[in-house]
């Protein structure tokens, strides 16, 4: 072999093998999640209520994960909610789109029985706290899409902090 000219001539034995995979999907989220996402495109939060335990899930995947029954009743939720817990992100990572430090919080929308994760802005990171009342800030109407990207972030809505008892069940 004329190894002097081969790609591998001046390197050692093969020890690793790159096996990248790339798969394409036509993803469909189903009925309940489609409704949630479409409501986002109108700047609205829509959840679904369990007929057994009456809890409201947002977003709902179409069933109550506690009772295993379909959640059929649609519930339009408030634009405001309560921070149940939070963290301040100080670590940079690949693909990060926001300047650090920033606040990530679990937000319990008024009328919902599960919290979901959101970004909190318009408050210094050392003033974030459990019980803080917040409201969603949406992107401009022209930019609304059936996607979580329609929610720009949450910010303090100026109300008095919620008492601990009002959200302790959701921690």
């Amino acid at each position: 072999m004329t190894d002097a000219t081969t790609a591998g001539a001046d390197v050692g034995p093969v020890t690793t093998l790159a096996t990248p995979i790339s798969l394409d999907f036509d993803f469909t989220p189903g009925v309940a999640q489609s409704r949630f996402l479409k409501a986002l495109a109108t700047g609205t939060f829509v959840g679904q209520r369990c007929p057994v335990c009456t809890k409201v899930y947002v977003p709902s995947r179409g069933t109550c994960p506690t009772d295993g029954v379909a959640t059929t009743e649609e519930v339009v939720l408030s634009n405001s909610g309560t921070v149940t817990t939070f963290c301040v992100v100080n670590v940079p990572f690949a693909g990060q789109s926001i300047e650090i430090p920033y606040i990530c919080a679990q937000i319990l929308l008024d009328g919902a029985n599960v919290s979901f994760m959101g970004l909190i802005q318009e408050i210094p990171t050392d003033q974030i706290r459990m019980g803080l009342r917040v409201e969603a800030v949406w992107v401009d109407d022209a930019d609304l899409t059936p996607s979580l990207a329609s929610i720009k972030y949450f910010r303090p809505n100026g109300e008095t902090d919620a008492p601990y008892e009002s959200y302790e069940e959701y921690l």
Partner: protein
Amino acid sequence: MSAPSGTVRPVSVASFAQSPNIRRDDQRNEVEGLLPVIAEVFGNIGITKDDVDFICSGSTDYLIGGPFSFVMALDAVGVWPPRAESHVEMDGAFALYEAWTLLQEGEIDAALVYSFGRSSLGDLNEILTLQLDPYYMAPLWPDIVSLSALQARALIDAGKATEADFAEVASRSRRDALANPKAQVAKDVAVDVLLQDPYVVEPLRRHALPPITDGAAAIVLAAGDKATAWSERPVWISGIDHRIETHALGARDLTSSPSTALAAQHAGVADGKVDIAEIHAPFAHQEIILRQAMGLDASVTINPSGGALAANPMMSAGLIRIGEAASRIAAGQADRAVAHATSGPCLQQNLVCVLEGA
């Protein structure tokens, strides 16, 4: 109540349900698709999730392209208070084996087994390549149809079957599927007509391939008092076993299935007369290999449901074989049946389950 002697503890297939098998269910997500199946499998015998002590599922996240979809699927059951649960990245038949094993220990008396998969979201040929050896095979992206065609050619060259034999299997399966309301492909087409189908990958013509199917299935297993309380005529698992062969395709004799033969021997297939067999043969030629491996002669009715050629929901088609076989015993159409499930390329791994009416 007579109980089988081949196992430590008698376990019955107490209930079975399956979704309609369709080419593309884009109306419902995995949870929404499973929900009515779980409701039916409980409703058949008038029980709730509180009556089962263990849940085991079979699925693969690659089908949906999202990690941990198997965890989300539990929302279709409702797992509060917290449940004992497990999952296998295999057909639900292998999840059933895990549940059966736990039932053997005697700590629990009932288990829910379910499986689901939407093959329509992605490219199934590419997704199934990921089950192959990742060093030598997967990087070449051989699709499952091509690998099965290699097996079919080997079978022809060995003089063990002809293309007409493949067409016979396909013709019979889809004709029988006319009586199966859950079937996806059901039609009466003669062998000589099928033999004019074009090749997809030669020597496999279109009719020898399974359909691409979205679907889900569930079974409730029961032991002890629950088995007799939930069924007028319990269908007992008298033997069950599964075996695997090397993943190196070129180190196997593709024209036989020693893993199936061994599993059949351990499950006790030959210990009595077999009335019907539900065989999980996604490709027509594989039924011929599997029949031979399990020693099923011409007196055995093969795949009265139409088998995987009539509907092949990934991750459920094996579990459905057990459900279909058990249903026929429960309905009094058979006394003893064999159900088979496979996993991996070219029948790499095989499970054999023998079912008997009380």
